[in-house]
């Protein structure tokens, strides 16, 4: 829509969805939100998205499962996916990359860093 890129935010916290939405909308992205991995898949299948930001720990369907299912669909094999999670250990990040994420950001991240990371991932794509 008017050349704006669309970002799907998947997180089970209403506050986090709202907080990240405002950051991204101010940075001129269009935002769609989902409450967990299952909702994320439905939203992805019914909207054209340019990038996905996903949490890991969500009820119903977690982030790794969500990413694996997204990647299993050939149509989305190169969709940029960024994990935004509270977990910061090396092994969590490894798991994220193994599942198919492009980048792993640890929460809480500064708004400027988040916007910059998204910009770089979109360019790289």
């Amino acid at each position: 829509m008017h050349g704006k890129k669309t970002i799907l935010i998947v997180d089970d916290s209403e506050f986090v969805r709202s907080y990240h939405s405002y950051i991204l909308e101010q940075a001129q992205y269009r935002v769609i939100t989902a409450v967990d991995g299952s909702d994320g898949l439905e939203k992805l299948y019914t909207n054209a998205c340019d990038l996905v930001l996903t949490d890991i720990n969500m009820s119903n369907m977690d982030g790794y499962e969500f990413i694996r299912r997204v990647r299993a669909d050939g149509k989305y094999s190169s969709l940029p996916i960024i994990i935004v999670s509270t977990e910061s250990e090396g092994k969590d990040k490894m798991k994220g990359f193994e599942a198919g994420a492009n980048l792993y950001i640890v929460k809480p991240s500064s708004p400027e860093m988040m916007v910059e990371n998204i910009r770089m991932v979109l360019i790289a794509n």
Partner: protein
Amino acid sequence: MPDLSVEQFQSLSQQIYQKLGLHFDEKKLYFLKTRVARRMAALGIDEAREYVFKLNYADPQGLEMQALANLITTNETYMFREYDQLQAFANFCLPEVLSAKQARGERSLRIWSAGCSSGEEPYTLAMIVQDVFPQAQSWDCGIVATDIDENMLARVAAARYGARSVGDVPDEYRRKYLIEDGDEWVVRRRTATLVEPRHLNLHDRMAMRSMRGFDFVFCRNVLIYFDDASRKAVVDHFYSALNPGGYVFLGHSESIGRVTTAFKLKRFETHLVYVKE
């Protein structure tokens, strides 16, 4: 009429989506407002934010959500209801399942219409099956139509419907599968024999376990009235009831992904459907 702010509306529709799997977009703002007003009046609540709080944090067994569900859903049943979803079934899911069976040399097709009420749904499915798959007669093909209400099951057996029930039946189908009798319509015997009415209480877990080997389960606009725990228990039983590759259909606006992640989401054009892998 209470003042429901945009944010409160969004919070409510989010909550309704998470608990019932029903989508309420901004077109339904007024609809939701009036129903919420009725619940608030019933509870003696004056301010919308109190009601939003109650639904979010003070409704531990989901009773208020159920009360709201009763007001925001329609209970009508008629043939070819939720046409979009039936298109997905007829054009994609059914042909896919039939080809897979033919490839394996299987010649059976079993469908379960759970909570069938007076039978419009199972007969709709029977018409579609015969239309998409004329060889249905030479296969072991059957639609089990279950309901807890014996009066309803008697109406299924009678297979006789008034104008309201058949209003949405496409002309072709009406010509091929129904016979006009005065001001009623009767399902032709050849089609009606595909449907077997059977008594079943969805809450009866032993009875539910006896339902196995189905290729399709339809349970549309029934589960929204159940509480969280029962809804999950029923959908979990549907999983066991299905053959691998089988599909489950809840009401088109009820998202099964809210209840369980055991099924896989598939997309056929604009239709989203859930399959047991």
